[in-house]
């Protein structure tokens, strides 16, 4: 009787001929995530087994599995020889301290097993009832279900619990995107959502030292590190945005500050994305949440780039976004008080519906190309 963890994948089983591509990616991601842990990965049909790990590593392993996109669920299980005696002993061991209602469910992939599914369930159920007087049978809605999975090759998996994981697609299976990460609640969630669909992430952050602090920068690095757990690593580009903001502040109308900044940020994000093989820009915009996220403002910032801009939060309410950020563990960091560059030179009344001709006129006062080049030259890259 050997302790194992059954890992099941999600949509991959819907794939046809290129299923092995997705499977291989998921296996690679699992291996990378568990790289400092001793274990063996056993690849079965449509599921994997994590075997030969130390009991003390169980929690670390499962915590990591819960953050790997593409995994549907896992179950702590026992791996026994496919004979009635071993199966029975294992089931009795699992259930010996339980009470209440139970049932036994059998799945028989190995059709050579002498009893069919119903017969084995009945046989084991009877043994359990005889051994533990605190248990009764309920086949409709039991508190405990013992699942017996008789695999081909003479081995059987036995388990009671299944823990749901993230689902989605394996990281790296859906291209590469450049996440614009600010330090707030929304952008890490946006990154997570695309990572969950299999997109490999890079991220870009704009900071305005000395107007913003080193602490704000550290906060963003922490957030990126948290998102990277889901995306299997992130290259974080830190762009010094100070000069651009000072120029906009000096030469453009106050109410256009945010609109103009967003256009610069999009342009820089696109250039960095193209340099690193990115195929999309990802933002945490949610329609109407702030002045820069009205459809007019989004149109203005969207118009300076050609890469697709993915906005997974566009139709989500703030509370829904907060819920996800709490679930993925970024919320506590996001609400730390250090402010980002968007609050520097914040206009009292930002333009809510900026007009394109006014924007273009204001922008004509700036040497856009030089400002972008200078900012790119000062960009730091952190590999997380």
């Amino acid at each position, binding site marked *: 009787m050997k302790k194992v963890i059954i890992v099941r994948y999600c949509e991959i089983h819907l794939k046809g001929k290129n299923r092995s591509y997705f499977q291989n990616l998921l296996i690679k991601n699992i291996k990378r995530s568990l790289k400092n842990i001793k274990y063996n990965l056993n690849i079965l049909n449509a599921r994997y087994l994590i075997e030969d790990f130390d009991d003390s590593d169980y929690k670390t392993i499962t915590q990591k599995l819960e953050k790997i996109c593409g995994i549907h669920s896992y179950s702590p299980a026992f791996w026994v020889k496919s004979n009635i005696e071993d199966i029975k002993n294992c089931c009795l061991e699992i259930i010996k301290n339980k009470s209440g209602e139970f049932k036994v469910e059998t799945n028989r992939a190995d059709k050579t097993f002498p009893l069919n599914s119903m017969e084995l369930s009945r046989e084991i159920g009877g043994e359990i009832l005889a051994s533990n007087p605190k248990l009764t049978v309920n086949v409709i809605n039991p508190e405990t279900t013992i699942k017996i999975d008789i695999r081909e090759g003479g081995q059987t998996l036995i388990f009671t619990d299944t823990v749901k994981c993230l689902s989605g697609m394996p990281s790296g299976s859906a291209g590469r995107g450049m996440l614009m990460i600010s330090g707030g609640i929304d952008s890490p969630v946006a990154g997570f959502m695309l990572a969950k669909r299999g997109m490999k992430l890079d991220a870009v952050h704009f900071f305005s*030292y*000395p*107007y*913003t*602090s080193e602490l*704000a920068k550290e906060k963003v690095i922490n957030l990126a590190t948290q998102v990277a757990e889901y995306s299997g690593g992130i290259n974080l580009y830190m762009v010094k945005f100070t000069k651009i903001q*000072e120029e906009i*502040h*000096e030469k453009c109308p106050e109410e256009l500050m945010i609109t103009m900044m967003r256009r610069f940020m999009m342009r820089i994000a696109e250039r960095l994305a193209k340099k690193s093989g990115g195929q999309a820009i990802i933002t945490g915009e949610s329609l109407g949440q702030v002045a820069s996220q009205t459809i007019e403002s989004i149109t203005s910032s969207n118009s300076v780039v050609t890469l697709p801009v993915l906005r997974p939060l566009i139709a989500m309410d703030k509370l829904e976004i907060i819920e996800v950020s709490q679930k993925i563990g970024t919320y506590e960091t996001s609400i730390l*008080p*250090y*402010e980002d560059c968007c*609050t520097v*030179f914040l206009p009292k009344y930002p333009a809510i519906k900026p007009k394109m001709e006014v924007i273009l006129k204001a922008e004509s006062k700036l040497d856009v190309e030089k400002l972008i080049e200078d900012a790119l030259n000062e960009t730091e890259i952190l590999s997380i």
Partner: protein
Amino acid sequence: MKKIYLDNAATTRPNLDAFNRSHAFAIENFYNPSATYRDGRAVLNEINLAKSRILRYFPNSKLIFTSCGTESDNTAISLFKRKNAVSTQGEHSAVFQTLENLRSKGQTVRYAKLNPDGSVNIDDFLSLIDKDTTFCSVVHVNNETGAINDINYLAKRAKEISPNLIFHSDGVQAFGKISSGYGSFVDLYSVSAHKIGGLKGVGCLIYNEKLKLSPFMFGGGQEGGLRSGTENVLGIINLSYCAENAYENLAKNLEKTQKLKNEFLSNINKELITIISSENASPYVVSLSAKGLRGEVLQHMLEDEGVIVGTGSACSSKHPHSRVIKACNYKNDILDGVLRISFSFETDLEEVLICAEKLNLCVEKLDKVMNKR
């Protein structure tokens, strides 16, 4: 670029002389002072010598060593059990938050208003005390503005209203720096080592020998049962030498630092910079504000120029302003721009003049950007 460190109210550079005289207690004389063998007793003896080295400057007093100023404040405040306590709006968080915690549990705590320089408004303070007041806490030197409160006088007046009250003062920014203050009416006085060249992780609570102190920390019965926990021997011996050094040179240091403060203030751009600290404040702490600009931005700019100073606010929308400077009744534009420049015994004129020059430069530059001049 030579780094100029002027955030000495936060912490000071360790005093090398005191360190050299004490470091043997980290390596060679490591014995537990509670041990009964000779080497242990010898260490305990050194702790007692350190105690008397400090108490030489505090007649009719005793002390217990603690881990920091905050622990000293907490120990003192733990003596407040019932009826009401009176403190000020100018207290360090170690006092303020401890009292607020008691207030949230139903105790009555009242805070006296401040004058614009950060000193307590004496009339308001006395008006809050009644015959049921059992505890008072007034900071000796305000850690943000340097304002000096005449604590012995305040204690005397407070005890005229409620004779049995216990009067505590946080002396962290005053100890070894300011000559007057502690006197027979003050019952408890908190001290931290690292503000006068000592090590972090050690402080003491000086108290009137007539006061019956009760323990805040329980355990092995060290310090006569008043503060359990194995003593930080290195820190304690080191603190005693730092204290001796500070008190032996107090007048000389004070005069020198007053000159530094005067030179500094006469060299800053007063059109753009408002001085919050008063003339008779502790010269070791200068609080000022670049009106309408952000203090933290100036702090970063000065850091890039090699000058390290403190700030009274952070780039944070949640806690944007200093609680204490706000209590001095300043408006937001002043609160935004607060900086704290603080000197040590080692600060020299050249450093102060460079700081003034760089400060002017940064303020003028930032003002130009922010106000499109």
